[in-house]
């Protein structure tokens, strides 16, 4: 009994009609790879198939074999996709359609991609191929579920998050950027699973990711993308309310874990995006610059200005940096002096890694103050 997978292609009777084509190398190549026999064998057949232009079912088997040995073999992926399309649309040009989602070939291909995506999470091509398939089947909701599951294996995987952003932008109807332009004019296709409601679960999804790891910057970035970066959806049109909601959200998360650069970056991001001066949240940030002992422990819960939690490590260098920016922006001598005080503190104690940078901030603040004074 032979498992077909363990036979070389050169040993398989059903491939005996193909003459394998060996790779060209001349005498002294740079960085030659000592291929395994299995890889040499399979790629010999791929080169032969590509040359003959055959696009049949067995080509799917061959390219799957190569991809499993080398998931970054982009030519094998490309030829696989073309073969797949040829088999799927034998007599008409490729066209996206909802019916494709129940086609056994498509189901099998997506199942294989589910398996390979987890196995080769960091390979671009796996995700690229998936985009091409989903642009045909137009079933983005399944993808959001799959992405959620695959982030369990690697919560910060760059490709996985990029794919989620692409899926939402491409199918969600708002500002869809790069991607595959496949449009359908068929009236029957109107009920494609696309539209704004695709976004409905995104903030809950971000919340769940941040509940697992409040420092997951990919989740913070995703929140920015959903709220600010890719169009405005029904229910979010009152931007003032949204700003307020987001500020409360980020402040609360800072109070849970003050030393979290991702949350501070998000705070700065919102303020810049909405052209709100940093000073508007000074009352919030200030307590995070104090040392632990000096924080007064009253029981007033102020949603606008949540205090650092009990065990917080203070002062927090992000808060110090933030408050220095607030002081410097006053462009008064007093403001600059307060900022300089904080920068000195950062340079000598709380963020010595960036000593040169804080010293630079001190010099340039003095310089602009002098220029302003001289001009006046």
């Amino acid at each position, binding site marked *: 009994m032979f498992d077909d997978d363990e036979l070389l292609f050169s040993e398989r009777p059903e491939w005996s009609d193909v003459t394998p084509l060996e790779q060209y190398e001349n005498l*002294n190549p740079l960085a030659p790879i*000592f291929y395994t026999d299995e890889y040499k064998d399979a790629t010999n057949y791929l080169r032969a198939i590509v040359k003959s232009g055959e696009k049949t079912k067995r080509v799917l088997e061959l390219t799957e074999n190569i991809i499993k040995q080398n998931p970054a073999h982009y030519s094998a992926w490309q030829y696989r996709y073309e073969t797949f399309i040829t088999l799927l649309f034998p007599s008409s040009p490729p066209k996206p359609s909802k019916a494709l989602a129940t086609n056994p070939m498509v189901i099998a291909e997506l199942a294989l991609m589910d398996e390979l995506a987890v196995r080769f999470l960091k390979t671009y091509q796996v995700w690229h191929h998936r985009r091409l398939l989903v642009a045909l089947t137009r079933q983005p909701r399944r993808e959001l579920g799959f992405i959620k599951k695959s982030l369990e294996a690697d919560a910060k995987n760059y490709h996985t998050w990029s794919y989620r952003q692409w899926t939402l932008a491409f199918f969600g109807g708002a500002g869809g950027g790069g991607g595959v332009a496949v449009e359908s004019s068929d009236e029957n296709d109107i009920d494609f699973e696309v539209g704004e409601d695709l976004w409905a679960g995104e903030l809950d999804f971000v919340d769940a990711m941040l509940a697992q790891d409040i420092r997951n910057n990919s989740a913070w970035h*995703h929140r920015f993308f959903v709220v600010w970066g890719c169009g405005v959806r029904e229910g979010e049109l009152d931007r003032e309310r949204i700003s307020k909601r987001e500020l409360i959200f980020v402040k609360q998360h800072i109070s849970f874990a003050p030393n979290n650069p991702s949350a501070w970056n998000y705070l700065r991001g919102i303020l810049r995006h909405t052209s709100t001066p940093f000073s508007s949240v000074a009352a919030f940030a200030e307590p995070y610059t104090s040392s632990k002992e000096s924080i007064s422990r009253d029981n007033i819960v102020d949603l606008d200005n949540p205090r650092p939690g009990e065990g917080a490590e203070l002062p927090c260098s992000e808060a110090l940096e933030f408050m220095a920016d607030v002081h410097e922006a006053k462009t008064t001598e007093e403001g600059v002096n307060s900022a300089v005080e904080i920068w000195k503190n950062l340079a000598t104690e709380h963020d010595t890694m960036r000593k040169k940078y804080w010293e630079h901030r001190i010099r340039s603040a003095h310089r602009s103050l002098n220029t302003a004074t001289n001009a006046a």
Partner: protein
Amino acid sequence: MSDQPSTLLSAFSRKAHAAHCKLCLSGLPASQIDVDGSRLALAFYCLGGLDLLGVLEEEISPRNREEWRTWLWTQHAKGKYGSGFRPGPFMTGRDPRISLQDPADYTNYDTPHLIMTYTALLSLAILRDDFSKLDRKGIIAFLRCCQRQDGSFSTVPGSNENDLRTLYCAFAISNMLDDWSGVDIPQAVAFLATCRTYEGGYGQSTFCEGQGGTTYTAIAALGLASAVTKKEYLTRSEKQVTIEWLLRNQDDSGGFRGRTGKEADACYCFWCGGSLKILGAESLVNSEALATYLSRCRFKYGGIAKAPGESPDPYHTYLSLAALSMYPPQVHDGNSTSETWKFGVLDPLLNAREETVAWIRSHVPDRKVHS
């Protein structure tokens, strides 16, 4: 931590690191099969490492260098999308008719690759090729075929695989050829702007999270474009935000991380460090801590790994050397140790040693036009 005196750095064993590069050039184990579609990039990291160590001439015989040039030219291919370089022969069948004199013809499945074309030009310059075989017009045509409607560039013609790396390579190639007629700069820059994030970094593509590597490609691409258009693409405050984000990525280990909250990795010492240098902020980097981190990434038998205790590879070895070229540690020990930490000066925009860039300037542009 940051004030740790760098005199503690042990001698940089240049021979061992050169040996790592040479070993990888001579062959890679089967475990590296996934490099098959990007072999030219790996070769560039090895050759670039030898170049920065300043040992190419003494370590590699003239005959060997000649053979390597010949091999690189066999990846030069021409066809309906113009000319460029392939990643290696992984899709090229053995064919006795292959000629070494002219670019070979390609099919739809072994076209030139944009990133590989960039690394091939750098590698040939490191090997001091005279570029008499270069099909300059063909390369310009190839760039045109790779640029997409949204201004971005695909890795190979017709592919949807596009990101800021390819855009940078298209700009770098135009700069090397001193001919920008193959790219639409305003469209490309408009695409690049959509990759900017609220943190100040750039994502791999539109909507993606800011990342050190793609931020380098964005900043370097803008630098290359500025040099020819004489335009400033970033406002003062945009620059400021990017500089701050980059500097915040130097973590307590002294190494740089690629994204907020991630671990430091040797390659980001180059990607972030190079971006800061291009932005004129190199004096703000803690170069002592940087060198201390990279010294801990050294593998004792040669080569540099992404983090202490990991296995070395040419990518991290080259980028670490490139980072050290820009940020050499001050070693005041009065003995030979300090000499071992000196490397060739790097051009941060093209990511190559200055002498190599000078060679490119005098050999890659079309002399008929520019003489």
